[in-house]
């Protein structure tokens, strides 16, 4: 088997043609689909109809696409409050699939799909993979969890539809992942970025250099990651790392994906309509301004989502991408409006800690933030796993590294943390998603 990396750029997949629709035509498609969907939700979803009635709105009040701002928002608690099927617009006889996302407290949220919904989703994932250069002939290792989580099955069907050879290995069992990656000559891997960093580390320990494998593309998502992390991944494995964005409430992975220019994920706008709002005033914001991403599904039948507040903080890029797609891009999402911690009155996003740790050479971002309250005072502890690279045999060098880490964190966040070095692989990881924050405070 040829073990070198193939860098050829494949011809455009026919399904990607929609990515290049002229803007006016795209808006026509969006408006037609929006009207249909709002009518369907109004007819079949009690909660939506009630909210429309409260605002004395009818589907016919949508006269242009921009009228979307009149519509009521949907939030995560709506899904929880109507658990499990309250927001379904289709009868059970037409629903062919459920997924659910693990809630941090209590009941999960459930999402439903008709066969047409699954077809649309598959196509969105196909276009995602095609946009970053995956084609038939690629061997795709899907290391997202299969099951209620949308990650595994979402990528699976999209990659199959593209004609790629899919390995449905699911999450976990790192040594087997690496063995399969090497033995099958895997060229594309799909998982969380933090898990892939773990794979690079582990492969190294097993005496396997990722740079020498045929692996050339990583499609990473399901958690926020930074540009620094992309550099680390690419330097450590000699692949191209692409950001895939999605959320179960909308469809799963494949709401947006980066093209080969790696300039932020393109939203598949013919299926998912994006807006940016001010999370406090809820007013719409113009392209280029940072705010909360709000998404409306334009085709979903089983569970239409209208103006769903994602809590992800980003901006719609005001300029056209060099690839020529007319689909707008979102800025890569580094933070959410709700994973913000307030410590001693200071706002803190986990991504800031990540950026600070990465600044200190030789530290891979396996870390955990532990917030506690002692004698009415918030405490911030950052636990960092020691890697072979960062480890030194002298106590003074290790103490100095701790100081540099603490200093870097203080420089970025304004908070002085207690940095604790812990042994490799001792920090909790759940389903490949790194558990970044433990807040022990009782508020």
């Amino acid at each position, binding site marked *: 088997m040829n073990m070198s990396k193939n860098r050829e750029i494949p011809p455009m997949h026919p399904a990607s043609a929609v990515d290049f629709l002229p803007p006016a035509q795209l808006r026509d498609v969006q408006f037609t689909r929006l009207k249909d969907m709002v009518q369907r939700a109004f007819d079949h979803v009690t909660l939506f109809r009630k909210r429309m009635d409260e605002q004395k709105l009818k589907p016919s009040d949508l006269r242009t696409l921009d009228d979307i701002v009149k519509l009521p928002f949907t939030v995560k608690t709506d899904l929880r409050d109507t658990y499990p099927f309250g927001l379904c617009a289709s009868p059970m006889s037409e629903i062919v699939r459920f997924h659910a996302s693990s809630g941090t407290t209590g009941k999960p949220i459930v999402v439903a799909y008709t066969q047409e919904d699954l077809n649309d989703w598959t196509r969105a994932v196909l276009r995602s993979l095609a946009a970053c250069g995956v084609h038939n002939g690629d061997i795709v290792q899907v290391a997202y969890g299969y099951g209620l989580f949308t990650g595994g099955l979402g990528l699976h069907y999209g990659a199959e539809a593209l004609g790629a050879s899919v390995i449905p290995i699911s999450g976990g069992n790192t040594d087997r992942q690496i063995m399969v990656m090497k033995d099958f000559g895997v060229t594309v891997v799909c998982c969380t970025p933090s898990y892939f960093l773990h794979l690079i580390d582990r492969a190294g*320990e*097993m*005496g396997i250099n990722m740079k020498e494998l045929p692996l050339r593309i990583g499609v990473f998502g399901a958690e926020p990651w930074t540009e620094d992390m992309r550099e680390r991944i690419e330097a450590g494995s000699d692949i191209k790392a692409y950001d895939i964005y999605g959320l179960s409430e909308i469809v799963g992975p494949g709401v947006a994906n980066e093209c080969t220019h790696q300039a932020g994920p393109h939203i598949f706008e013919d299926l998912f309509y994006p807006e940016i709002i001010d999370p406090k005033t809820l007013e719409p914001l113009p392209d280029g301004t940072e705010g909360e991403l709000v998404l409306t599904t334009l085709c979903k039948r089983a569970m239409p989502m209208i103006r769903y507040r994602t809590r992800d903080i980003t901006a719609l890029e005001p300029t056209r991408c060099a690839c020529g797609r007319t689909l707008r891009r979102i800025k890569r999402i580094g933070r959410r409006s709700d994973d913000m911690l307030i410590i001693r009155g200071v706002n803190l996003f986990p991504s800031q800690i990540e950026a600070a740790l990465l600044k200190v050479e030789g530290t891979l971002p396996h870390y955990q933030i532990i917030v506690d309250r002692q004698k009415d005072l918030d405490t911030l502890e950052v636990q960092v796993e*020691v*890697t*072979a690279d*960062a*480890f*030194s*045999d*002298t*106590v*003074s060098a*290790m*103490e100095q590294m701790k100081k540099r880490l603490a200093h870097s964190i203080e420089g970025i966040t304004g908070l002085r943390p207690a940095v*604790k*070095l*812990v*042994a*490799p*692989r*001792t920090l909790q990881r759940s389903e490949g998603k790194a558990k970044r924050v433990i807040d022990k405070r009782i508020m």
Partner: protein
Amino acid sequence: MKIKQLSVFLENKPGALSAPCRLLARADINIQTCSLADTREFGILRLVVEDTEKARRLLQRNGFAVKVTDVIALEVADEPGGLAAILDALEGTGINIEYAYSFSGRTKGHALLLFRFSDPNAALQVLKERNINTVGSEELSRRLKG
């Protein structure tokens, strides 16, 4: 002659030391000497073993952060001023001793000490000029067995 030393990161908690030691024991790797540096929250276990590479692979495969460092084993006369003579040799060279520890037992009126110098190559040069004997790993194994 330089000797390879393994350093292992340990958290400062009960049982942390036994895990790597048990691993080595099960693989039949003998620890020729070791020392433990500790702080309030973490420790560094330093080891000299016969097959450094095998031990490194074993520890790394089991998830330990491991580092290989060059150290120098020196014969120190087992008499007053024995260590001072070595330190005198390094005086003014700018070479720093990061840490040192010893092998148990002594042979022919000499103690055997391990030094981690800031610059092992420069230290070797200085020691050679002063005719201070260094002990290589093969010689070390022979002595420890003999």
